[in-house]
């Protein structure tokens, strides 16, 4: 889902930076009130965790493997605003140091995966978990559904951003200059694989980790 450089036109990536920066500002302000000086090590280690969670390959079917993005899981464990900053930091490092996702697309990638991933995931989790017991099965189901929904919303947004390129970002002769596929192709291509495969992987990992934490360290779920 990481959009590389060259896929989004200047108007889109500038707009995505403009949309994402206020979320970073609100997240920093909220964390500054609660964490203060403790903020940097807490977020840095949270971001390192957000980065490595993508390295855990899990078996799916017949020798194939997949991995989670972990935005919802991190939002459940660290809180939604800490997750916005931690996942964003992980995405910025991936773009700057590993070429995974574009530098011009950092705003779009952070909005899709960190802002929407964490806030939608956390919102759905709180809605379903409500005031249930920390060790209840309802929390496991809430985590799974939240992870599935948030990943699919992120994928849908990515598809829309890519699909809008041939509409808004064209040459003077009307030819597409960036991602060339229209909404009717980009959205189903991204949505289908996340609805049928990656969303299920994300939901399974989130549910299993929540179950593990419920058994071994339930206090960590008190966010």
């Amino acid at each position: 889902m990481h959009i590389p450089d060259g896929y989004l036109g200047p108007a889109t990536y500038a707009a995505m930076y403009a949309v994402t920066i206020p979320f970073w500002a609100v997240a920093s302000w909220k964390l500054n009130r609660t964490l203060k000086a403790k903020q940097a090590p807490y977020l840095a280690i949270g971001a390192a965790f957000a980065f490595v969670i993508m390295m855990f390959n899990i078996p799916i079917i017949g020798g194939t493997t997949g991995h989670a993005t972990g935005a919802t899981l991190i939002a459940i464990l660290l809180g939604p605003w800490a997750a916005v900053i931690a996942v964003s930091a992980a995405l910025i490092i991936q773009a700057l140091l590993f070429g995974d996702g574009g530098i011009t697309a950092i705003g779009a990638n952070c909005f899709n995966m960190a802002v929407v991933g964490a806030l939608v995931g956390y919102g759905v989790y709180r809605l379903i978990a409500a005031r249930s017991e920390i060790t209840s099965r309802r929390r496991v189901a809430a985590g799974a559904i939240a992870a599935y929904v948030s990943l699919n919303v992120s994928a849908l947004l990515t598809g829309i951003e890519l699909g809008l390129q041939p509409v808004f970002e064209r040459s003077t002769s009307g030819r597409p200059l960036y991602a060339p596929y229209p909404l009717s192709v980009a959205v189903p291509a991204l949505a289908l694989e996340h609805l049928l495969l990656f969303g299920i992987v994300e939901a399974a990992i989130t549910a299993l980790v929540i179950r593990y934490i419920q058994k071994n360290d339930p206090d960590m779920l008190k966010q």
Partner: protein
Amino acid sequence: MASTTFLDKTLLAITHVTEQALFSEKFANRRGFLQSLDIRFQLATFLFILVLISFLHTPQSLWLVYGASLLLAFFSRIPLRFFLMRVWLFVPIFTAAIVLPAILNIVTPGDNLWVLVKFSHPHTWGPYHIPAEIAVTQQGLWTGVVFVSRVAASVSYAVLFTMTHRWSDIFAGLRALFVPRVLVMTLSMTERYLFVFLRLIQDMYRARKSRTIRPFPASIERSWIASRIGITFRKSVEMSEDVYKAMLSRGFHGEFRSINRFHSRFVDYLWLATVLMAGGILLMSERGIVW
């Protein structure tokens, strides 16, 4: 039964990250042109070049900018073959593969160059239209070439930038672009703790691999992986507490100060002026404002 592919893939992913870090350190220490520049100037000019690439409209301009990246790699003492492999493997090749259908008249209608398939009549399903002749169009080919050239040029500069500076310097240089100090500190601390976690995961996976005679059913393997993620998270919380206490014991009181001292020279200003002028002229000539 699940296979143990997931163990190998995770170990391989960890090795890949470590390998990239080692290569960057190796090339950043060479005495080349880009390595000699002040990181603040390089960061600003590379961001300018990436933005410039996104504004260019013709393949010729994009190839010119791409060609300049090869020259810069040469003068920065980066082996050309290694550089080409790092750039072209994955993103541009992946882009070339996904752009293939876009060169056809199904996605980009226009003047047919080569007819590939002929049907008796066209088909339409909702928003999808399959013409009677599926062909490569001139407009589609142009779109594909521009798209792949843009991605390759962007990736070239992104790779060149990360290969010619130490990662810690890159984060320190972000301060010059008015990135908040707390974010710069968070990023540089993340980079350090990332390798601590990678080592932790590598140890867990190696230990597991060394005692695996035959794999368990996939459901058990998935539970094992979930437990490793849970353990990694618990350790990360403990570590953040320890790091904070260690910072306090060294006199930290919430103020972030950088130990990096930058020294700009005449060559840095010359480099900045050259890039800005060359970029401006290229963009204006492409749009027909000059020449």
